[in-house]
């Protein structure tokens, strides 16, 4: 976690630097089908995060030795644009993005019916255009929508959310200063219907009680975020039905 500092992250009224309450999410907006070439796509704005996701496939897995005879492999590639952060980031994968790509791929493969596509791969390209803390869970949330919008059979949607600790208090959805100067960060990916945990990372300092409080907050927020995902997809499929002469 970040370095110790004198910055106060919660004011005397219990509000955070951006005026949110401890259990308040930043504004989230999801759009589907924002790209023409990709088989599926989604764009998410989550606070100051702006993230584009494109899905290609299922298509034959390449190189061949990566093929799984029983199921499709999900290959997510999380990438931060050079201009997405304050100091220019050197383009290309670094150790952090390799790790995030791995955990996102593993999380998504729980939601997709991978067993329907043996020997195939499904590519999920997550491009962070502007980063504002919580990019991995915003990317995961949008990736799930992009997969659904590509028409890929799924058993559930993965919803991402973080909780963390700032000024000794557990709060939902850390913003940038909170991420930099807070004491703990707990990003999670949860299947919306079953509530199963498909992504979890944590760093910082949490007691077991604080962990329980953080997960409780996340579970509650998952419902709200999932509703936004569903709305985005409903918008797409309703207009599709209208085009085809539905009522």
């Amino acid at each position, binding site marked *: 976690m970040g370095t110790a500092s004198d910055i106060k992250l919660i004011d005397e009224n219990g509000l955070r630097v951006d005026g949110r309450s401890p259990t308040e999410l930043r504004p989230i907006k999801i759009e589907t089908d924002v790209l023409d070439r990709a088989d599926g796509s989604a764009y998410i704005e989550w606070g100051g995060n702006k993230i584009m996701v494109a899905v290609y496939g299922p298509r034959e897995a390449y190189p061949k030795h990566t093929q799984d005879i029983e199921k499709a492999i999900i290959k997510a590639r999380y990438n931060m644009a050079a201009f997405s952060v304050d100091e220019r980031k050197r383009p290309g994968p670094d150790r952090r993005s*390799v790790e995030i790509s791995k*955990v996102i791929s593993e999380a998504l493969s729980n939601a997709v019916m991978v067993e329907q596509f043996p020997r195939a791969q499904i590519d999920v390209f997550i491009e962070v255009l502007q980063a504002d803390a919580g990019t991995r869970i915003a990317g995961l949330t949008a990736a799930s929508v992009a997969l659904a919008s590509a028409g890929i059979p799924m058993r559930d949607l993965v919803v991402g959310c973080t909780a963390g600790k700032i000024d000794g208090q557990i709060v939902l959805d850390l913003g940038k200063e909170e991420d930099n100067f807070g004491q703990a960060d*707990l990003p999670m990916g949860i299947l919306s219907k079953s509530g199963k*945990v498909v992504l979890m990372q944590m*760093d910082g300092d949490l007691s077991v009680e604080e962990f329980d409080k953080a997960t409780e907050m996340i579970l509650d927020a998952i419902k709200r975020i999932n509703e936004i995902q569903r709305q985005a997809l409903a918008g797409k499929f309703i207009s599709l039905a209208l085009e085809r002469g539905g009522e």
Partner: protein
Amino acid sequence: MPRDEAGVLSEIKRDYIIKKLKEGKRGDGRGLDEFREISIQTNFVPRAAGSAFVKLGRTKIVAGVKIESGEPFPDTPNQGVLTTNVELLPMAFPTFESGPPNENSIEIARVVDRGIRESKMIDLEKLVIEPAKKVYIVFVDINVIDYDGNLIDACTMGVLSALKSAIVPGSKEGGKDFTLPIRNLPVSVTMVKIGDEIVVDPSVEEEQLSSARVTVTISEDGHLRAMQKGDAGSFTLDEIRKAIKISSDTGKLIREKYLQ
């Protein structure tokens, strides 16, 4: 981690492990929350500033520390630097290949690094030579030489032991040599889920049979410092809570017995 890459796990072995688990036992006779035998030999490589040779069952790793002076990161001018790297050597497993770190070795290194860093094990503020200009840079390199599962825990123990034994070459900077300022001894406990059971310190065979992995690193005060869920499967929240409990209980024993 590699799954079935060294040849398919024999069906007989698979059935045996699963049958045993139903009786609350492991294929190799261990209890579900029991580690394999641990042996740690520090100062294995005297040429390094600190080192450790760790055996965790048949998994073997060598961790070495090198300490040099260099520039601090601009955002932490008053702190030394700690970097962790893991090499999965081709000698360790039939399908490990030489070359730049792949996603597996990067994940292991980053999870190990987070556990050590977030527990504030080393007082990095004591590693400053000249603020904002010159600090000590602690390089921890881990070579995996024999792989039989659970590299994250073997590597964390190796890093911890190597750091504990490390000498900072202060005499090169006009001062005195000193031991690294250690404040905390974090222990990571990695568990996998096989069927509905959670077992600690998995062997390669158990890793291959498992659907998901979780690592929980806990510091001496009993607080969570780093966690990582891995592999394609999932956990319920209750299973995660159970894993935290197991890590807390088992980790305490390991710290007392092997790391203090």
